């Protein structure tokens, strides 16, 4: 028997489960080609929890949808490489790719109420993938649905398999979504703002549930959110996205303790705190650029308090600033070179 290799650091993980290289997504619009994601690279190890933080329109959801193959082309264009277990998903035949979705990579969505088909019972929907792939009988599918509903802790699952989504509360719908995603024990679960539409107590329950399920199955979780508190609590490693690019990434503790990029710093400063002085919250001035009108140089420079001349003309690349932590900022590089 071979000795298990302990995962020493996050960067030294042997083979990533998902390896994204230079992923770009753009869309044809009446106003020309619009870049939604511009060259993003990251990887995910088995069992890891990765957070992707960003404002609306920063390209976090679009990037993940591209990985899942949910971008319609035309008008969308996806390029780069998405390696799952070493195989490039983007060049795969549609058939194989469909096989991958649901079976290996599952996704849950922001608004569970609208992510469930109103005309099918929750049981049918939970067991849908299972029936599709395992070609089992109706009775077995129902048993599986009940089992999954038990797993996501929906009370009295037996009576509820026949209910319709509109008979469920938002939190229960999200549980149904999670059950649907878990049907085939995927290796990666992508959660696109899974708790945004829920109230805070339910948010906590859902996150606890996800963490529990993740522990049981050892699946990797990609959590897309704009809720920094959520990230700080649940995630191992996080990436901050701005205007379609990663501006900073690293272990979540490092990111919160020593944020390097002015945008990350701004985000963290704009979080309400229990300990600090009370008063008006910090806000990052200005608005994110529209996807069609990206500023030259660093996309963040119009809003940056520390910009220098270089920021106006030259786009900073993602560079290591500390162990496992990378930032895309000219100033960060300079502090390091000093």
């Amino acid at each position, binding site marked *: 028997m071979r000795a298990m290799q302990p995962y020493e650091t996050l960067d030294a993980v042997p083979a990533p489960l998902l390896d994204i290289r230079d992923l770009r997504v753009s869309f044809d619009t009446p106003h020309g080609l619009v870049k939604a994601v511009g060259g993003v690279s990251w990887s995910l190890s088995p069992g890891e929890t990765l957070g992707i933080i960003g404002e609306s329109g920063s390209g976090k959801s679009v990037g993940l949808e591209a990985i899942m193959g949910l971008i319609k082309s035309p008008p969308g264009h996806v390029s780069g490489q998405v390696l799952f277990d070493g195989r490039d998903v983007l060049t795969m035949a549609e058939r194989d790719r469909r096989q*991958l*979705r649901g079976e290996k990579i599952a*996704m849950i969505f922001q608004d569970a109420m609208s992510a469930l088909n109103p005309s099918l019972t929750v049981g049918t929907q939970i067991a849908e993938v299972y029936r599709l792939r395992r070609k089992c009988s109706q009775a077995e599918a129902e048993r599986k649905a009940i089992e999954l509903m038990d797993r996501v802790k929906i009370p*009295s699952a037996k009576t509820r398999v026949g209910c319709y989504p509109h008979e469920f509360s938002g939190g229960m719908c999200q549980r149904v979504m999670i059950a649907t995603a878990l049907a085939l024990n995927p290796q990666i679960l992508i959660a696109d703002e899974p708790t945004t539409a829920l109230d805070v107590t339910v948010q906590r329950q859902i996150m606890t549930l996800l963490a529990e399920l993740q522990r049981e199955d050892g699946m990797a979780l990609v959590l897309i959110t704009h809720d920094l508190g959520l990230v700080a609590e649940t995630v191992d490693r996080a990436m901050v996205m701005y205007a379609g690019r990663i501006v900073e990434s690293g272990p979540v503790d490092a990111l919160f303790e020593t944020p390097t990029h002015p945008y990350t710093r701004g985000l963290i400063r704009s979080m309400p705190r229990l300990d600090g002085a009370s008063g008006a919250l910090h806000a990052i001035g200005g608005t994110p650029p529209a996807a069609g009108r990206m500023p030259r140089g660093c996309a963040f420079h119009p809003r940056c308090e520390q910009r220098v001349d270089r920021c106006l003309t030259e786009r900073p690349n993602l560079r290591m600033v500390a162990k496992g932590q990378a930032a895309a900022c000219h100033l960060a590089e300079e502090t390091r070179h000093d």
Partner: protein
Amino acid sequence: MTAVDAQTLPQDEAHDRAAAITSRAYFGALMRDRVAFVSAIFLGLLLIAALGADLLAPYEPNQANLRARFVPPLGTARDGGFHLLGTDELGRDLFSRLMHGARVSMSIGLLGALCSGIVGITLGVLAGFYRGLLEDVLMRAVDGMMALPSLLIALFILFVIGPGFGNLILIFTLLHWMVFARMARSLTLNHQQHTYITAARAIGGSDRRIILTHLLPNMVSPLIVLFTLEIAVLILSEASLSFLGFGVQAPQSSWGLMIARGREYISSAWWLVVMPGAAIFLTALALNLVAAWARAITDPVQRWRWLTPPRRKSQPIDDED
């Protein structure tokens, strides 16, 4: 979450409730909506009359009886025969002829709507789902065909290929599929925005599966309404075409044809025009009223409102009555 826990039901009760919804609830909902109920009864009777015309009609519809010409409604002929709706110029019983005519009118309406529905919905869903060139071509075709004066086109084509039942269905499919296509396309576009379609794709559903199990069931409600309304429109169209002599031909009888024949005697025997006219009017009206009811009842999200009986006093919400 607490709400869910609180209303946790004993299993049997929940099962009973689910069973009740499928079977008896539809009837109960129909009973509560009086107008729809009366309309449904009318359509039901009409269907019975049309299907059982051979057995139920009091007289042979095509048998002339010169001793009983122009008997007014509720009149008795000289040979002693009672005629509920009177007789025509050849002494044929109007009521029996209406029953037989109903068969033709109803089946043309139903079949025509069904054929144009199948063609239109298929094309419309494909256009909305795949977009691109298919959509452009199809929707321009729809726009073009909508601009055509359909009655004239129908007359022209029927003149070329000849009148008759089958040809009528063909013409109606040709001239009415656009209505369904347009609606099916817009519904498809609308529903594709919903996350559950993305979600279905995310679990690896094929296009076919997404269309059949996720899109179509959610589109049923408005399409059923359109279908019901189209039946009424087609019955009226058939009446106009038969009236103009291009529809159903002589030994066969339809309501439109009966009006056409009765027109000559309108000053002396008003019932020859009024009775079939009333039949057309009432059928179209009943179909429209039932359509409104069907819209409510087939909506997957809204239907429980109509399907569950009014709440009992013990329950807190909604007990004004």
